[in-house]
């Protein structure tokens, strides 16, 4: 009888239309982190950066030993570099998609290398999109549009 759908039909109170989308950007390269951060801030998003997959998982409350995140963490988009030491962007993608709490968050993978098998692997793994570096303002603007549409449609993370 109770509605057990993962999506609510109206925006949750956590998502006001004026609120800036929150992007988590993961990249081991400091310069790339700075550039991606600025790209999204200029597209009126809030940005949190992480220097590797492990830190990103910790932030999301998905690291080994952590309890699933029950606080008000709201992330609307995760953008991750593919080639990172320790954990690749693909491995991070898989961990996020395996999480009941975080799997709805769109994950975009970026890479400086145009390798079709890599692209396929990420898309099969549930990536929203695969983009080539270097990123430009138009990429950030386009992604922000997707995020806003998703919020407006009332897609929200199931707690």
């Amino acid at each position, binding site marked *: 009888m109770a509605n057990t759908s993962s999506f609510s039909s109206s925006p949750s109170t956590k998502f006001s239309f004026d609120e800036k989308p929150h992007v988590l950007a993961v990249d081991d*390269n*400091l*310069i*790339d982190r*700075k*550039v991606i951060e*600025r*790209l999204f*801030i*200029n597209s009126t998003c809030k940005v949190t950066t992480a220097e590797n997959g492990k830190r990103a998982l910790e932030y999301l409350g998905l690291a080994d030993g952590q309890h699933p995140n029950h606080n008000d963490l709201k992330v609307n988009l995760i953008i991750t570099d593919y*080639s990172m030491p320790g954990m690749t962007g693909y491995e991070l993608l898989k961990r996020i998609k395996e999480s009941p709490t975080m799997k709805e968050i769109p994950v975009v993978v970026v890479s*400086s290398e145009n390798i079709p098998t890599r692209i396929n692997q990420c898309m099969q793994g549930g990536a929203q999109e695969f983009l080539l*570096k*270097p990123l*430009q*303002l138009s990429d950030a603007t386009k992604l922000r549009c997707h995020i806003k549409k998703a919020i407006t449609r009332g897609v929200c993370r199931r707690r």
Partner: protein
Amino acid sequence: MDLLSQLRGQIADFSAFLHREGFVDDQFTQLQKLRDESSPGFVVEVVSLFFEDCEKLVNNMAKALEQQIVDFKQVDSHVHQLKGSSSSIGAARIHNVCIAFKTCCEDQNRNGCVRCLQQVNHECIQLKNNLQTLFNLEQQIIAAGGSIPAKQ
């Protein structure tokens, strides 16, 4: 011609030169577009970080190439970093050297790597000087009452 117009002419010419000679590419222009009232120092900041990083990487690569037995994987990982950063800021010449450098690493060609490293170093110094000139011109424009980018 007033000072401001003169300076604007100078900076336009210099920017065209930098692009023409391949010191920077369109990605650098993209970065300049990201500069606004809330982050006027963005380009200078990122460029400074880049050169700091560059210096560190060059030193690490030099040390690695001096070893009896060269760890080419190590060198390659440094080149990969530099290749990425240079692409992100639009440092086209440096990026191109890195492409050749990577090949030398893959071929385990020590002499080739040493040559590439020298080239990287040379290009870094040149770009640093060129961008300093550009930033100085921008400072002069601001001091003369103009703004960067020019308000329409």
